[in-house]
């Protein structure tokens, strides 16, 4: 081989290596998901119903016992533990077998009847899982028209499924046939909200739509100046929602804007929460806003940059405390009155999914309320802290 040829080959190889090195230096958007949690009841020992938390993570769905943070053991109809081939207890875990690369779940699983859990996938699939056996009715699932980011809403006769590309559909609960379809320009990325027969649909096309839930016809729509990525909060017959334009709105159910706050630093993505007439919401710049809801509009009680990165999850109010989780992998306990930080707890992954408060009850025999936080880290997908003092109780990882 001539020297020239060798030089050419070396040069080409060097060029490819350089491209590879440069590509490795460039940040690319992370490919991980943030499935929302939901609480279910599952027959435990002696067939006594127990509360369990459905954790969608990457391509798996696991039922977690909130008492100890372990995967629920599968039981038969008599309440006995089902053993696997080696005689070990079978655990309640469902794998989609890597059929949803890169992301699988952004929404919460919903129960559609006593035996069936509907798991909406970002991979344009609706998976049905038998709750008792933790088996998929079909590995492929039911194909749907779009990616699912917002959680479906289940009513007596319908399942409302929002698609992230364009539309929202009402499916017949029994046979999944399409009852109606409503198009938006940029899709629906949050769960719709049902208020009597009014279906409130937040859309990324900047509009908040109110539809006739039965027929899917438009009743009213409002342009909120930016994408609407969260489900509105319904409080005392009024809607509260923010938009990517950094605005927060108070809206009547007949489609009038009653008040607007236009002072957020960045996008408002998550759903606000309200307590004692004060609305709390975070933005994607790490700020938290406390706004008093007054007759003539919003009044800023306090606002401060709590986290260094986005706060998407809905803040949780517990007594005089406001609990906020952020992308900076920190959970903050704030004084509700002033926003002053009381203490913080670190987790391994970013927090983007809504947090879940689990109270002691007949089915969940925990000594005190927990706050469950799902993170985007595989090794710490779900973490439980006590609500009042932030003591870490357990963590579940894959």
């Amino acid at each position, binding site marked *: 081989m001539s020297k020239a040829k060798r030089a050419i080959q070396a040069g080409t190889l060097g060029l490819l290596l350089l491209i590879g090195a440069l590509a490795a230096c*460039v940040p690319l958007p992370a490919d991980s998901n943030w499935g929302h949690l939901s609480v279910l009841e599952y027959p435990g020992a002696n067939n006594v119903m127990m509360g369990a938390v459905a954790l969608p993570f990457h391509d798996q769905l696991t039922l977690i016992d909130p008492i100890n943070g372990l995967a629920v053991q599968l039981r038969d109809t008599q309440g006995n533990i089902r053993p696997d081939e080696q005689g070990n207890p079978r655990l309640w875990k469902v794998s989609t077998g890597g059929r949803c690369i890169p992301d699988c779940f952004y929404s919460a699983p919903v129960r559609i009847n006593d035996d069936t859990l509907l798991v909406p996938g*970002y991979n344009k699939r609706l998976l049905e899982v038998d709750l008792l056996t933790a088996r998929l009715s079909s590995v492929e699932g039911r194909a749907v028209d779009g990616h699912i980011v917002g959680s479906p809403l289940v009513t007596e006769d319908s399942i409302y499924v929002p698609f992230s590309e364009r539309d929202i559909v009402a499916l017949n609960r029994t046979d999944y046939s399409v009852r109606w379809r409503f198009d938006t320009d940029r899709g629906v990325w949050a769960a719709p909200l049902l208020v009597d027969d009014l279906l409130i649909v937040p859309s990324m096309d*900047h509009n908040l739509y109110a539809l006739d839930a039965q027929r899917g016809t438009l009743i009213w729509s409002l342009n909120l100046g930016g994408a609407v990525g969260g489900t509105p909060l319904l409080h005392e017959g009024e809607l509260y929602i923010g938009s990517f334009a950094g605005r927060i709105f108070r809206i009547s159910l007949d489609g009038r804007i009653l008040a607007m706050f236009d002072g957020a630093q960045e996008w408002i993505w998550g759903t606000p929460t309200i307590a004692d007439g004060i609305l709390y919401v975070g933005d994607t710049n790490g700020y938290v806003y406390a706004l008093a809801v007054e007759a003539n509009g919003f009044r800023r009680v306090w606002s401060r940059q709590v986290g260094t990165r986005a706060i998407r999850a809905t803040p949780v109010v517990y007594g005089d405390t406001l609990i906020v989780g952020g992308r900076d992998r920190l959970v903050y306990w704030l004084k509700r009155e002033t926003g002053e930080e009381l203490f913080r707890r670190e987790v391994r992954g970013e927090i*983007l999914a809504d947090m879940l408060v689990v109270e002691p009850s007949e089915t969940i025999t925990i000594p005190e309320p927990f706050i469950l936080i799902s993170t985007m880290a595989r090794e710490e997908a779900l973490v439980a802290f006590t609500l009042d003092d932030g003591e870490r109780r357990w963590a579940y990882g894959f």
Partner: protein
Amino acid sequence: MDLILNPFVTLLTLLYTIFNDMVLSIVVFTVLVKLATYPLTAQQLKSAQKMQQLQPEMKKLQEKYKGDREKLSQEQMALYRQHGVNPVGGCLPLFIQFPIFIALYSAINFALASTPTHLIDLTGRLLIPGLERAIPLNNLWLGLDLTMPPNISNPSSALVLIVSLAMPILTMVTTWLSFKITAPPPVPSEDGKPNQAQAMTQSMSTIMPLMYGFFALSFSVGLSIYFIVSNIAQIVQYVLMGRANFGNLFGRRAQPAIVTAPAVKAIPANPGNRPKPSGSSTKPSAQRGGHSPKPSAKGGKTK
């Protein structure tokens, strides 16, 4: 990298707010990038031309210092200095292209943000206030998601399959055309073989289309659009500068840039006539005069 990435994301989003079409925004963006890197392209062209012109001299040096690499290297550098040529000057613009397209690939993914995770990564990257009102940008084009690779394995329609196949093919064809049309015409050396630079160009004109075709299959459709438009813009740029070599497409060879004729001593038909001075022509006088050449008295030969 955010120093490059965030302005790119902002510019793409700004163009989207103007044209309300992502493909058109990528096209305009590519043209703007081409205009911005024009000085580098011009430098690359100038450098390539000078190198081309120096090839015969280089060949001579290589022959002269065959056994002495150090001396050869010194003489080569002296030759470069003498003619004001930077030997790596031609490569620099090429290397600058790569960070640009890698940043663009990233910018397309961030700006179009097809998943919620991508969208939340877009926060804080828009440098012009008010642009967030355009978010999210429409990432669908002819049934394809611009942030995803072409969908050949599982197309949802015939149109999607056709467009998915067309993108890598167009990328490869335009890359090949761009290489061929913008490469200087090959100058044959004395032994008739291509010189090292030409061999490199020939090799690259085969490897690069394949490599870019692979990129087009593996990366986002938006990036393929950038490749295609960038190649076409490159060709147009060269045509406007009058430097396009369409002859390369058909394998035509240019005349050597510097003609180094061997020493020729014409044999006079009439022994009383003086021989013509050497180097004045490559044609032997016999051909001109219609006489057969004969060896000279000093042993010189016509070639």
